[in-house]
């Protein structure tokens, strides 16, 4: 079997073409972001990307979601490098209103597109995509601007909106440990969007804090089975502190 272990982050993202749709995992905290893969994608330079992500790079430079407010890398570096055409996300605006982020500035200037998705709808659309479904009906967003142009049905007496599944060409994922088969375990809050997105892209690229030999992870505790994962790279400094 061809190895899934890649020697470096740059090699792991080298084939991402212009115009690709990319999922980027995490909630928006330092340990849940695949920071090295994001930096490698910035260096790689693919343009016109659509990113499916919880927050459009709104927390890293503010240091919200790290210990002691230490800044960390997030999607904002891709925006500053003008690589993002569109964001499909739930948190596009800066968490501190007086400090607008790169996405917010580009969106308000008409330079980037935005599809607002409530966070739970985003997670479920991705889950549905990974599970081979076309979509689902949800009560979230009824009576709000989210319902615009969506089919509405009354199910068990409750109004619901039809939401379609999301899939991507690539997913950039952060994990705690990976074995060489690609089986993943996470730590603490790291699962967030990582474990969901790992099921929903054609090519799933994982930044692992540690790669271990196959067989070292207890099969009872695997969160992401290895068949979902295509590429694994080990972090040089294994942990975020």
């Amino acid at each position, binding site marked *: 079997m061809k190895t899934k272990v890649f020697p470096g982050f740059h090699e792991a993202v080298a084939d991402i073409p212009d115009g690709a749709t990319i999922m980027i995992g995490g*909630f928006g*905290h*330092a*340990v*849940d972001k695949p920071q090295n893969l994001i930096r490698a994608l910035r260096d790689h330079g693919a343009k016109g990307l659509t990113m499916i992500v*919880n927050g459009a790079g*709104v*927390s890293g430079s503010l240091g*919200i*979601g*790290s*210990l002691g407010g230490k800044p960390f890398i997030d999607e904002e570096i891709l925006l500053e490098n003008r690589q993002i055409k569109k964001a499909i996300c*739930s*948190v*596009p*605006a800066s*968490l501190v*209103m007086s400090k607008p982020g790169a996405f*917010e500035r580009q*969106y*308000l200037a008409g330079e980037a597109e*935005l599809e*607002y*998705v*409530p*966070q*739970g*709808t*985003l*997670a*479920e659309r*991705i*889950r549905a995509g990974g599970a081979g479904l076309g979509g689902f009906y*949800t*009560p*979230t*967003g*009824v*009576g*709000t*601007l*989210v319902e615009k142009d969506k089919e509405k049905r009354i199910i068990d007496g409750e109004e619901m909106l039809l939401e379609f599944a999301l899939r991507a060409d690539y997913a950039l994922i952060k994990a705690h440990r990976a074995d060489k088969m690609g089986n993943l375990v*996470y*730590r*603490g*809050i*790291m*699962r*967030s*969007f*990582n*474990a*969901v997105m790992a099921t929903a892209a054609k090519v799933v690229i994982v930044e692992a804090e540690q790669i271990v030999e196959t067989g070292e992870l207890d099969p009872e505790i695997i*969160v992401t089975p290895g068949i979902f994962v295509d590429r694994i790279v080990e972090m040089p400094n294994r942990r*975020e*502190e």
Partner: protein
Amino acid sequence: MKARLDRQTIALRVAKEFEDGAVVNLGGGIPALTANFVPEGKTVIFHAENGVLGFGGVPPEPEQSPYFLGANGVPFSRLPGMSFFDHAQSFAMIRGGHIDISVLGALQVSEKGDLANWTFPERGIGNIGGAMDLAAGCRRIIVAMEHVTPKGQLKILKKCSYPLTASRCVELIVTDIAVVQVTSDGLVLRETAPGWTAEEVQAFTEPKMLISIDLKEIEL
């Protein structure tokens, strides 16, 4: 000016609503402060949308870890019985009715219980985050907020003018001057802050409120 309750005291009043064993999700701002005021003898299981149930308060600095931060980025301590999960499951809990109480901040609340708390038109952009799911899915929605804006604009209105988070979802509004319940007959003023009369609270509230027959001072 009459004294208004401070944010900590609003949080203290909100926490009195927590039943023993309740599963509770807290939004940012005043709602997050309620975690410090869980009534003695009651156990509350806190849920954070980034995938944690059953976490504790902020631990001393040496025990803080970047792997254990709540949705607001604040460190939590690990308690026996806590669990971690992914976002799809986290929001399955929310939409699926498995979270008993959601405490949210608000920009505006209508007399029908409509909630607007994610943006206002002048900003041109806003963060829906998990608010629409929480408002649509949790059993009880409690709003914790100041009664009027810093500029004195009313926030409890006949109809929200800002984009909605969800319609007809708010059950209770706890502010710095009153506790107001949303009922099918309209808003009911249940409690007033010390020194405030019903008429004085009404003056800062656009819809006409019904006055509870057992109107009392906010119990702290």
